[in-house]
């Protein structure tokens, strides 16, 4: 059905495209068009949303060359009007001042204060209309990728005359990507309107498409009374699409699980050092994470225009701040309590309360907003139903990086060697000249610093507030105990597997029950195998 005529006349193509663009909206004589545009602008400054929509419709009809710029500025919230004479202006903000450019008098640029202009507010209804219009406008120019996206955005929302225009456009289009998109759009329409033969060939066209509109179209087709052949083919294709959706659903859940697990690992791995290696039950571990998150916020406040740089600097920054706090806690409190787990537990719990209230006094009890840099927001779209969120991907790899770095420190540096020596046999290590108390402080600092680094990652996912730490302390202990005390590999595996298990149970049981099931499983597991997944071997185990 769809042949591919390669157009060798770009100029002709352009004219045709423009003509079609005009066909979307009834054409107007030039003079009247300018008037409509002005009237539309005037309506934009009115308060009533229905008037604004009318105004926008007029603006779109006028086909003024500025239409696209105007619509996208409105959508982005960059369109204002002056308080004094209600002139519509584009405005950009910098340092509390606005630089405005008039829409009609676009050579006049002015610096004004925020009091003299008002933003043109829009609601969801307008937003939706704007996006539709912009998609239509974008069909005609821009790189193929954007045009294809514009087509996909329109899927399922097409009116019959729009489909006709798309068919014309299809004949002219040269980019394979856009042709593919257009073919899908036309085929979905054919499922509704075409004869049996056309439907069959449209079905072949839609065979591999995962777009939700395709699925809806197929379901509607099957519910209709059509020929048996069409029914059969549609059912077969729908089944295939559904099995692919199920497969990608599985991949998605797996990704969710690994990402949830990487958070657990990040939160727990510092504890694996302090609790696992030197045996301190540190209830203030969560608050060290919180300190890391607040450090991120402070650094971001200092560098408000460089979000990405701020996050990168926050990693060493949070490590240092948390590590120093950890060393202070160790030197001033924990050092006196070695070998007395119960007292350590109580004292560090007290420390955690003190730190929480200190944060409330210094930063206020309100949460702080940490913004995400561009490369950590949005998602990586693999296909219409599988997209992975960027922040989770970054944090997953960050977790692996932290684990790797820690592993190297423990295995390859002299500090690591001393730490392992002290943890295996304190008396013997001291006899060999290892300064045990200094090693204790440094180890505690290392564990605390890692907690701070976890705080940087968590600041991208959750609230930065005084209660941040409490939410993660139980989970951290759970992971360390499950993985086997004193074993880094155990912590990694335990965190990832608990996260994945949680995410696979969640769809069936709900979030609350999933958490309970995982906890019950761990309790049973620890009953059977108190030493965890990977116990320390040898004499040290005792």
């Amino acid at each position, binding site marked *: 059905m769809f042949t591919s005529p390669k157009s060798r006349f770009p100029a002709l193509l352009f004219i045709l495209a423009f003509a079609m663009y005009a066909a979307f909206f009834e054409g107007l004589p030039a003079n009247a068009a300018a008037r409509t545009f002005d009237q539309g602008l005037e309506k934009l400054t009115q308060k009533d949303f229905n008037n604004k929509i009318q105004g926008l419709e007029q603006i779109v009809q006028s086909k003024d060359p500025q239409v696209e710029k105007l619509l996208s500025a409105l959508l982005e919230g960059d369109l204002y009007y002056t308080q004094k004479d209600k002139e519509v202006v584009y405005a950009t903000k910098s340092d509390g001042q606005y630089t405005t450019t008039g829409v009609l008098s676009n050579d006049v640029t002015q610096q004004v204060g925020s009091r003299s202009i008002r933003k043109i507010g829009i609601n*969801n209804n307008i937003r939706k209309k704007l996006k539709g219009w912009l998609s239509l406008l974008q069909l005609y120019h821009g790189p193929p990728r954007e045009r294809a996206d514009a087509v996909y955005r329109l899927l399922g929302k097409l009116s019959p005359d729009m489909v006709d225009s798309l068919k014309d456009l299809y004949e002219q289009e040269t980019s394979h990507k856009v042709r593919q998109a257009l073919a899908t759009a036309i085929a979905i329409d054919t499922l509704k309107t075409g004869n049996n033969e056309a439907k069959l060939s449209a079905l072949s066209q839609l065979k591999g498409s995962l777009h939700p509109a395709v699925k809806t179209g197929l379901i509607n087709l099957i519910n209709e009374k059509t020929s048996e052949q069409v029914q059969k083919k549609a059912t077969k294709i729908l089944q295939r699409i559904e099995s692919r959706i199920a497969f990608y659903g599985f991949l998605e859940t797996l990704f*969710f699980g690994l990402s949830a697990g990487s958070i657990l690992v990040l939160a727990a791995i510092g504890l694996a050092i302090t609790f696992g290696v030197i045996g301190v039950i540190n209830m203030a571990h969560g608050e060290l994470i919180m300190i890391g998150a607040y450090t991120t916020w402070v650094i971001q406040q200092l560098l408000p225009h460089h979000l990405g740089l701020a996050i990168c600097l926050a990693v060493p920054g949070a490590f240092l701040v948390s590590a120093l706090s950890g060393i202070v806690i160790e030197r001033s409190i924990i050092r006196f309590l070695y070998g007395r787990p119960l007292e350590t537990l109580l004292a560090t719990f007290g420390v955690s309360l003190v730190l929480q209230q200190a944060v409330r006094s210094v930063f206020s*009890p309100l949460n702080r907003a940490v913004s995400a840099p561009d490369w950590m927001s949005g998602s990586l779209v693999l296909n219409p139903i599988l997209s992975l*969120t960027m922040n*989770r991907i970054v944090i997953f790899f960050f977790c692996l990086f932290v684990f790797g770095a820690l592993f190297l420190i423990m295995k390859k540096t002299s500090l690591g060697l001393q730490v392992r020596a002290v943890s295996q046999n304190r008396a013997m290590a001291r006899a060999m000249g290892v300064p045990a108390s200094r090693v204790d402080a440094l180890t505690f600092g290392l564990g605390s610093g890692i907690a701070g680094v976890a705080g940087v990652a968590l600041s991208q996912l959750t*609230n930065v507030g005084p209660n941040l730490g409490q939410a993660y302390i139980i989970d951290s202990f759970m992971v360390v105990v499950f993985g086997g005390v004193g074993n880094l590999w155990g912590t990694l595996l335990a965190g990832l597997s608990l996260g994945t298990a949680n995410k696979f149970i969640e769809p069936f049981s709900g979030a609350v029950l999933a958490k309970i099931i995982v906890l019950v499983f761990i309790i049973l597991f620890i009953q059977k195998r108190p030493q965890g997944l990977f116990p320390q071997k040898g004499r040290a185990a005792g």
Partner: protein
Amino acid sequence: MNCNRLFHRLLFITAALFCCMAIVSPASAKDTIKIGVLHSLSGTMAISETTLKDTILMLVDEQNKKGGLLGKKIEAVVVDPASNWPLFAEKARELIEKDKVAAVFGCWTSVSRKSVLPVFEELDNLLFYPVQYEGEESSKNVFYTGAAPNQQAIPAVDYLMNEIGVKRWVLAGTDYVYPRTTNKILQAYLKSKGVADADIMINYTPFGHSDWQSIVADIKKFGTAGKKTAVVSTINGDANVPFYKELGNQGITADNIPVIAFSVGEEELSGIDTKPLVGHLAAWNYFMSVNDPANDEFIENWHTFIKNPNRVTNDPMEAHYIGFNMWVKAVEKAGTTDAGAVQDAIIGVTVPNLTGGYSAMMPNHHITKPVLIGEIQEDGQFEVVWQTPGLVVGDAWSDYLPGSKDLISDWRAPLKNGNFKVTK
């Protein structure tokens, strides 16, 4: 032995700390009227409740500048129940028995209100409760100045159904009494409007839930079935930030699946990067952005009082504003601060609210309010897109639940009953 001494020392320090926290402004002159402020200043709920404490202090301050009440100064006694529910009851008892306060303004969570309720009933004092709640309660001693479900949830659903054309519903909430009751009411209401079971998805999450990936993915799947879908969110407190972040990251925008929230206000938004949330909705009885002279004055006073021009105002603050003024008016009307007399006097008292109208205390101890729907803007404020044509009377007992349909509450003589069964 060393360990014992240290333990004692620790105990001593802790005790000393607690003493310090307990002693709050003991200076009291004889000719003052005392009111209690029962809001958590530490712990989980401090984030929301600290603001309300400051609001009451500001209102007391203003009233004193106007000459006080019955010729006396008002004095606020502030205690900190530390987000600890049993401690709320203890502190309430302390306020009433030891400090002899005339009325108490306080509580946020339903569980804290349930915890102090018997204390107020036993000692016959007054509690002004400023937060939207699940209804299904009416006490002689409690005045509910926040919204009942029919003053927030039901109009919000009406808006989505009639103005946006929503056909499929996700009811997402935190797992405790307010969301569960509200969702039960909403579910009954939706069914009465002909929504099929398959078009309602209900989801509960634990407090402070932070991993929303799979739930948001489920919502996305639920929303691509061809019918217009909306999320009605009773997600509470801290869990909202990661929820909205995940929505933004998974590309759910307000124009494909709008989320309407009952617990997200200006205060909560001030801790979020609001860019991805633009267009999502909230239903309240007050927004800081409402253009009204009374509101402008309130905001100005608030900024002067708190000495920070960036602080926001929100709905529970307005509820306290209304509640405090109602109490003042009722005391003036009764000529005494005696709880029984104020209880009788306050019914029918009408005071201006901050949205350009008046609110009245009804016989069921709920007040009349307008319901506003706002869309989140980039600056963390709401733009009002819809509001009820008139005031809505708070309904203590929902009309959509089988057990409470036939109950009415009327605290005027001669009925004086909070759950009177009306036989059909």
